[in-house]
């Protein structure tokens, strides 16, 4: 949509058409100048680690060949080992559950809070800022705090539960509950992100829309469902996509709280990759890289889905 209002120009002669084409391609060149910093970034900082990671996954690395750099090329053997490993299926299942449950709750709670804060009231600005505090904390601190709170014996959550007469839950040490525990912590950490972006999106919706709806006698819920949500669609789409990508990468929280255990009950692809590479005294870089690449591929597929979805929406 490069078009300026055509009525403002009278471009009928050949020379002026040529001039217009020249201007457009000049502008195209200009555009890439603006994009030069980002491109440099991508090549230096993303292409290289990606290439190294791909390389790591396609060779049979021992610690010795890692240092000397002469590992034999083994094609997709690392990937085949990964698929055969008994941890693979649980890791995939846990990743799926972890990701979708986290995003679902983060988005819903973030949206509810954004709607709540949308109308300003006394202290709303300060309170909204305070909601971002979880993001200030280094993950080692937030994850450790949740570990403390969810400790089977000395955790405050279990104290509260037992005070209400409910049984003690072994949040971090029981295979049944470990995944739930890390999901809860992850939801808590993800709410600020959703809140900020959805709030920005809500703020961008002009007042007249709400006033018109109110004039038509629409209730709060109807307005929300039929006006707010559709208008928020592009912002929601990007929030969900980014949330998906970031949640796939989540590692610190799970690692610090449960190390992916006990017995792999909270292992996700991300923690498995780290465990293979750095979790024991003997690193297995090849399989670690293979798992990491698998993760990137999955994210890639969803990225493609998103692009397609945006194209479909734009053409409507």
């Amino acid at each position, binding site marked *: 949509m490069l078009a300026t209002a055509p009525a403002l120009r009278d471009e009928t002669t050949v020379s002026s058409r040529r001039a217009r084409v020249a201007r457009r391609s000049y502008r195209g060149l200009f555009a890439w100048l603006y994009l030069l910093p980002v491109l440099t970034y991508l090549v230096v900082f993303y292409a290289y680690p990606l290439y190294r990671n791909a390389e790591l996954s396609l060779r049979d690395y*021992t*610690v*010795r060949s*890692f*240092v*000397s*750099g002469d590992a034999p090329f083994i094609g997709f053997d690392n990937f085949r080992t990964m698929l055969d490993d008994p941890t693979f299926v649980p890791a995939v299942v846990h990743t799926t559950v972890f990701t979708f449950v986290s995003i679902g709750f983060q988005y819903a709670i973030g949206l509810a809070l954004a709607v709540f804060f949308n109308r300003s009231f006394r202290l709303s600005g300060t309170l909204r800022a305070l909601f971002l505090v979880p993001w200030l904390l280094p993950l080692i601190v937030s994850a450790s705090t949740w*570990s403390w709170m969810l*400790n*089977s*014996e*000395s955790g405050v959550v279990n104290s509260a539960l037992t005070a209400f007469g409910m049984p003690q839950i*072994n949040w*971090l*040490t*029981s*295979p049944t509950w470990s995944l739930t525990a890390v999901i809860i912590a992850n939801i808590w950490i993800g709410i600020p992100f959703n809140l900020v972006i959805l709030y920005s999106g809500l703020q961008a919706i002009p007042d007249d829309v709400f006033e018109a709806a109110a004039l038509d006698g629409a209730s709060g819920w109807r307005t929300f469902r039929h006006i707010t949500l559709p208008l928020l669609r592009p912002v929601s789409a990007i929030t969900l996509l980014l949330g998906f990508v970031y949640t796939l990468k989540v590692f610190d929280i799970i690692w610090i709280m*449960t*190390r*992916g*255990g*006990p*017995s792999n009950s909270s292992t996700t692809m991300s923690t498995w990759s780290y465990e293979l*590479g*750095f*979790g*024991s*005294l*003997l*690193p297995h870089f090849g399989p670690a890289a293979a798992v990491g690449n698998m993760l990137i591929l999955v994210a890639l597929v969803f990225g493609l889905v998103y692009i397609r979805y945006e194209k479909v929406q734009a053409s409507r």
Partner: protein
Amino acid sequence: MSHPRLRLIGAAVTGLALAGTMAACGSGGGSSSSSAGGSSSYTFWDPYPQFDGTSDWVKLVESCGKSAGVSVKRTGFDTSDLTSKTLLAAQQGKAPDLIVIDNPVISTLADAGVLTTTDDLGLDTSSFAENLTAAGVLDGKTYGVPIGANTLALYYNADLLQKAGVDPASVKDWDSLNAALAQLKGKGSKGITFSGIGTEEGSFQFLPWFWGSGANLKDLSSSDAVSAVNLWVDWLKKGYAPNSVINNTQTTAWQEFSAGDVGFVENGTWQMGNAQKLPFKWGVISIPAKAGGAAPAPTGGEFVAAPVQKDNGRYKATEKIVSCLTDPANLLTTDTTLSYIAPIESVQQQQVANDAALQPWVTAVGDAKGRTSDNLGTNYPIISEQMWDAFQKAMTGSASAEAAMKAAQDAAAAKVK
């Protein structure tokens, strides 16, 4: 309209200036870190980030460098990072001149061809205790020297035991230990706490019971090994140990002990400093073996090693620095600071002379075993990983001890060289 933006920019600039000043003021005093010339500046990496430039340890490192005629730039890293950093640096051809690193990692680094042998350096290792240097021996060659060792024992809460009518001297084998724990539980306390987490730390804590049952790391599925796992599983089932042991680190276990309602904690020499601050009377006994006597405990503690350098000429100064660091007088200071036991007998005696409470630890270290000894080398991490997997499964009830250890042995056997 641009006023708010200008104000924001102004605020940011002020903030930057403020930050820069704070940072500069803070670091201006301390860092005269020598990054002078290339060849006369030696890099030194260790896993003690809690020590900064003003600490005795760093001053010692720098003075050893000076006496060897070079300047030393020392960096402290988180211990879990150090292995991968060393490998990455070696890959790029920029390995440090000296590293201080956890002893079971030495065989991994040696296997990677990253380390020089003590012969390469011309270092004499005869005065070091053999059971401690064994952790750094791979295929008959020694790849570093220990700067200190620590090991595990049972600390006990003397007040609590007295109230429960337990005599610590009576805990000589597994049966008497279990009896003591039962008595403690009867009086409403917790019996014992330890670290059973699914990492190398958990394996470290499991090994005294494992070796104490008579089992051998080469066969995880033996009945002795299974009995060791069942010891832990029964403690959980009977409530002698709190559920949190499944996720405890050694620090967390110590904190549970300091809270005052646990009778025993399995922990190490490094807690001696903290033990002095306990609000109750305490004591130490060695970990009992199944049939009686002290169980062999694993050695913790770091080695100092020298990665391979492109320029052989650097090794002369490196050797001098290592000798200086492991000189008996210096070892005494270092090991006292770190709460380690010295690896040289004469220094051990001096430590005991200074503090008689260290005697049981010196004995324990004398009986201790390196995890990578018996030429297990790089097979140890593989076995260890399967082992912690197995006792975690057994403790959470996902599998019986027997089935879990059998699966662990099969998996380990398939992966070891």
